[in-house]
C-alpha cells in the first residue's frame, strides 16, 4: 500500500481517526473506512452529485476530494440529517411527502445539496432552487418533485413526520 496518512475527521458530530491511503477519496473513506454508505458514487468525475456531502458547511463532491484533505474537517452526510430519535427532518419529510425519490440512489446527494442551499439561503426563489438543484442528476423523477420538495421545505410547509 502506498502513501498512508492518519487523519482525524468528524462525521456528523463524531470524531474518527483513520489511516487512509492518499488516493482514497473522501467518498471512499466515508463509505468503506467509516461504513457510512449513504453517500453514493454515480460517476466519480464530479458531474452527477450523488456523492455530495457538506465539508465545513459547504456542499462538496466527495468524489473529488481526497480523504487526507478532510483531515480536521467537519463532514456532514445524509446519515446525520434525522433526529436522534430517528425522526425525519423537515427536508427529508418533504422529499417523502412529495414523492421526490424513486430508486433513491441520487437522494442523499440531493438532500445534502438542498441542506446547503437552505442553510445559506433560507428563502430561495423558485429559480434559485432550480439553479441549485441543477447541480445534480436524477434519472428517475424528472426533477419536478424534487424542486417541489425543496420549495415546501423552504416554506416550512412540509408534512409533519409520521410518528
Amino acid at each position: 500500500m502506498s502513501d498512508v496518512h492518519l487523519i482525524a475527521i468528524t462525521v456528523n458530530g463524531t470524531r474518527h481517526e483513520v489511516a487512509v491511503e492518499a488516493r482514497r477519496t473522501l467518498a471512499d473513506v466515508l463509505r468503506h473506512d467509516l461504513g457510512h454508505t449513504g453517500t453514493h458514487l454515480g460517476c466519480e468525475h464530479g458531474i452527477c452529485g450523488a456523492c455530495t456531502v457538506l465539508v465545513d458547511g459547504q456542499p462538496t463532491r466527495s468524489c473529488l476530494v481526497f480523504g487526507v484533505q478532510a483531515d480536521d474537517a467537519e463532514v456532514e452526510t445524509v446519515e446525520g440529517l434525522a433526529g436522534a430519535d430517528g425522526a425525519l427532518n423537515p427536508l427529508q419529510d418533504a422529499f417523502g411527502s412529495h414523492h421526490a425519490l424513486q430508486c433513491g440512489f441520487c437522494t442523499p446527494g440531493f438532500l445534502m445539496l438542498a441542506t446547503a442551499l437552505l442553510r445559506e439561503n433560507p428563502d430561495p426563489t423558485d429559480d434559485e432552487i432550480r439553479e441549485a438543484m441543477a447541480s445534480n442528476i436524477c434519472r428517475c423523477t424528472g426533477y419536478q418533485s424534487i424542486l417541489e420538495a425543496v420549495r415546501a421545505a423552504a416554506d416550512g410547509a412540509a408534512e409533519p413526520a409520521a410518528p
Partner: protein
Amino acid sequence: MKPAAFDYHRVDRVEDAVVRLAELGEDAKVLAGGQSLVPMMNFRLVRPPALVDITRIPDLRYIGRDGDALRIGALTLHREIETLTDPEIVRGYELLPRAARWVGHYPIRTRGTFGGSVAHADPSAEWCMLAVLLDATIVVTGPAGEREVPAAEFFLGFFTTALEPGELLVEVRFPRPRPHAALQEFARRHGDFAIVAAAVAVDVDGDRIADARIVVGGVDEVPLRIEEAERVLDGAAPGGEAFAEAGRVAAAAVDPSADVHGSADYRRELTAVLVRRALAEAIHTDRGSDGDGRG
C-alpha cells in the same frame, strides 16, 4: 475509476510549496480545489506521482482593491467572487461576480479556486477569458522568486501556461475597471463548459465606442483576442449594426475545430451571435442592469 497511487504532501506556506515542488520534480502537481484535476486523475488521464496540497495556505485567499487594480489571491473560491457585493471592492468589476455564476455548478464553486482555474488553462474557462479580456497580470512565484506574466503571454495552448516547473500561481491582478463589460456563453446544458463564449469590454467616449476588447473562448487552444473585430468597433456608434458587424468579423476571423458538441461552422455561427449579444449587454452594464449573460 480510482486514481493511480501518489504521495500526498500538504503545506501551509507559499515558500514551503515552492521548496516541496522543487524537491518532488516537475511531474508533481499542485492540488488546489481539485475540481478539474481530480476528475482527470480518477480517469487516470493524469497520474502525478505526488500532489502538493496548497489549500491550507491562508495568505492566498483574498480579494482586494489597490486603487484601480483588483487583486485576487490564487486560492479565492469561485463562490467568493460570486458573492462579492462590497461596493468598495467590486465597483467597476461587476462582470466578475456575474461571470462566476457560469462557473460549473454551486458545489463546484464552493471548492474550486480562481487561481486553479487560471493555471488549468481551459480556453473556454471564464476566468481565463476574463484575464485576457481585462489585461490581467498573473503573479507567479518559484525557485527564482516572483515574476509577473501578462495574461496575453500566459496561455500557451490547451491546458498549457507559461508556468515553469516548480512555479506556483499566487495572484491574478486586474489593472483597471471596465464597467462596460459582458460575458455570453452557449452550452447544451446549464453548467456545462461553454461550446463558445464571448467576453467583451468597451469604453464609451461620448457617443462612440473606444478601446474595445473582444475575447472568444472555445474556438482555439487559448482564449482568443480578436483584434479585427475590435477595430470594427473603435469609434463606431454603439448599436445593433456595429455589434452585428463586429460579430461577423469575429466569426470570419476564427478557425475552430469540431468535436462531439458542435461543428466548426457552428462555432463560427456562435461566435458571431455571442459577440453581438455580449456587446449589446455590455453597453448597458454600467447602469447596473443584471444581464444574465445567457447566450
